[in-house]
């Protein structure tokens, strides 16, 4: 009985130690600031968008809801740790007459702070600074603006992927 008990304990101990070992390999050497994004924007444009009868045009600008995408920055060592969010986009299909901009509409929740990014700025193909913060912040809301729309933009499905990169300062 004693031997059996010891054997089961040994097996459990070995399993736990093995689990710890595997997990320790997955852990970063130092804590790393991370960012997550929740949400996307899909915008159908149809004849219902026309500004009147035949002969008229489309609105030149479309705006998403003010919380279309929410970012969370976490994994900081505390409120003294500063970071910056850079933003860029990678187009799949795009028309050069279209512009795409973003602004921050909320500061989110958390003990850290957050500044800038509250006016529309174009999202380009290369990284540009969007806003700054300290500490962990959750649910930082973003709003988007599509500009340059007109009937001259050929019928097609246009798309782009927006990348948010948190930079530890």
């Amino acid at each position: 009985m004693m031997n059996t008990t010891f054997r089961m304990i040994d097996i459990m101990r070995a399993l736990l130690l093995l689990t710890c070992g595997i997990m320790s390999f997955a852990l970063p050497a130092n804590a790393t600031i991370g960012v997550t994004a929740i949400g996307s924007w899909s915008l159908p444009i149809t004849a219902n968008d026309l500004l009147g009868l035949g002969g008229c045009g489309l609105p030149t600008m479309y705006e998403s809801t003010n919380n279309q995408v929410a970012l969370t920055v976490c994994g900081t060592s505390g409120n003294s740790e500063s970071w910056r969010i850079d933003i860029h986009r990678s187009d799949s299909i795009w028309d050069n007459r279209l512009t795409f901009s973003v602004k921050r509409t909320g500061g989110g929740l958390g003990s850290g702070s957050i500044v800038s990014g509250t006016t529309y700025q174009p999202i380009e193909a290369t990284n540009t600074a969007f806003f700054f913060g300290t500490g962990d912040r959750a649910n930082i809301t973003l709003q988007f603006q599509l500009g340059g729309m007109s009937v001259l933009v050929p019928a097609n499905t246009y798309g782009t992927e927006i990348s948010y990169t948190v930079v530890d300062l």
Partner: protein
Amino acid sequence: MKQLLSLVAISGLMALATAAFATGVSTTATSSFNTDVNEMAVLNITSGAGNLVLAAPSTGGAAIAAVSDSATYAQYTSVIATGKTRILDAKITTGSIPAGTTLKLTAGVPGGTGNVGTKASQVTLTSTAASIVTGIGSCNTGTGATDGVNLGYQLSVSDISSVVLTSSNSITLTFTLNDGA
């Protein structure tokens, strides 16, 4: 031994939780944007077309003069895929023109923004569709009183021997923006 096992178990759970957190977060996150610009073909014919009345000539023996009206415009918005075009055509869908007469339509030069197309030559209106503007791409003509394509109608006597007195002939013309080849 129990304490050691507990410690090891807690360590394992913490490692598991931290690893799960670490693998769900990275320094770059993404979101997507898509806009589906649909094809559109919306047409409006302005009101105000007058009656075409063939009047007696002022001099006996003279031919009956043709009469015309150019008070109306075709105004359209077209959004179409790259490489495709549309045609604006017209035909008589109800009624008929008086015997011995011919009704012709001449499109004015299209105006507006974008590829508004090219006017075709004068056509004789029948129940078969005739193209009056071709090569229409993505465009809009505008909606002002004189925007778009002027529609010039001309009623003339083509066979005087067939012309008979009628009180009134009313016809309906139907204009269509069709996808071209």
